[in-house]
């Protein structure tokens, strides 16, 4: 894999944005339920950076979290997150960014962006919930939690995530335009 300097800095900066996004609501919304925008941001990573850099930036995000920076939801972080059953969601962001990026690359209509975003959400839920089910089953060595129950837990955040996903698709286009206006980061030639 060959990286230009701009590739490195963009992916790193997006990983930092993701870290902000995972806890942004905890210092904005007081007295409400803190929601995490990680899925939203990982979809944006795919839409804005493309498949390759999007996946790289999500990998960097997962790594700095495991290295101990409190960048995961609820300011958690550290190697011990790996033992938690929800670790699959963190891993799924890499796949989400990659697939979303692949779908949206070379397309820039609103419908294709929203379509890509929804596919991203499906991957996030599918991968994360399966991981959660199998990880817990293995760690706790018990069959007491059924596959259905694991999915039932995921119904609660679903409506909020669908709204967020669609707005990610819409917002990505706007962000792209705004970023393009003042920087050259999306130009292939200007920065070698």
């Amino acid at each position, binding site marked *: 894999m060959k990286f230009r300097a701009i590739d490195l800095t963009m992916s790193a900066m997006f990983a930092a944005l993701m870290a902000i996004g995972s806890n942004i609501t905890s210092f904005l919304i007081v007295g409400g339920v803190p929601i995490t925008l990680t899925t939203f941001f990982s979809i944006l990573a795919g839409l804005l950076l493309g498949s390759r850099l999007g996946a790289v930036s999500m990998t960097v995000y997962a790594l700095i979290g495991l290295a101990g920076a409190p960048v995961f939801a609820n300011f958690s972080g550290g190697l011990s997150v790996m033992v938690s059953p929800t670790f699959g969601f963190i891993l799924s962001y890499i796949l989400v960014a990659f697939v979303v990026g692949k779908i949206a690359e070379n397309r820039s209509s609103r419908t294709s962006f929203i379509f890509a975003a929804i596919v991203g959400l499906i991957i996030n839920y599918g991968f994360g919930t399966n991981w959660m089910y199998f990880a817990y089953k293995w760690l706790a*060595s018990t069959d007491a939690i059924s596959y259905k129950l694991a999915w039932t837990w995921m119904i609660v955040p679903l409506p909020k995530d669908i709204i967020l996903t669609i707005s990610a698709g819409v917002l990505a286009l706007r962000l792209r335009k705004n970023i393009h206006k003042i920087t050259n980061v999306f130009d292939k030639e200007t920065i070698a």
Partner: protein
Amino acid sequence: MNHALIIGQYVPSNSVIHRLDPRTKIAIIFFFVIFVFFANTLTSYAVLTLFAVGTAVATKIKLPYILKGLTPVWFLIVFTFVLHLVVTKEGEVLFRILSYPIYSGAVEQGIAISLRFFLLILVTSLLTLTTTPIEITDAIETLLNPLKKIKFPVHELALMMSISLRFIPTLMQETEKISKAQASRGVDFRTGPMKDRIQAIVPLLVPLFVSAFKRAEELAMAMEARGYQGGEGRTKLRELRIEKIDILAFITFGIVLIGLFLTRA
């Protein structure tokens, strides 16, 4: 809060464990995590627990800090224990709670599995309690160095991690600044239905993203201007060195492993 974000859960001290090379700590934890699953008798669990608790004591970190690292998973540990009590039906009936039988096998298994959970989490959180994220990044870079042969971008990943860690506090301040600026224009993040709140985040995100990408561009230009050409021939500010205490740590861990294999059935 910004400070906490840079150093993570790291608690500064000058204990033996803090002074160990981060690579030593990562290697030992890696093998510990694997070998936890080998324990299958009471004494073998005791050996591992002794090692984990002994290490925790050696860090000289106050108990509340260590417990804080465990809080997100306390629930899982207790939940797993209770689940085993209710579900497992092996061995004899020990006693009854409201005429519900509790089996001896259930208690044994519940304790073993919860203890395993606890050990895994304790040991892994000791790494991040005694090592800064930047030290871990350096360690990962040198540990994964052999992967360069198969063209895995080890240096690039480590560099991105460092850049990212460096810019999280900056972007955090930026977020605060923008949210205040938008609040003064009447954007309300705190009240109203969920849909409105999500919409209120948009005028926050657009300037945040634009400024983050602007920074990325400036940083890339600065790197190019200084002749950045990848990891080849780059020297390091922080050199990692294996010292005597690292060798001692490996020997101690080796003894624990021998103890584990002698005591397991």
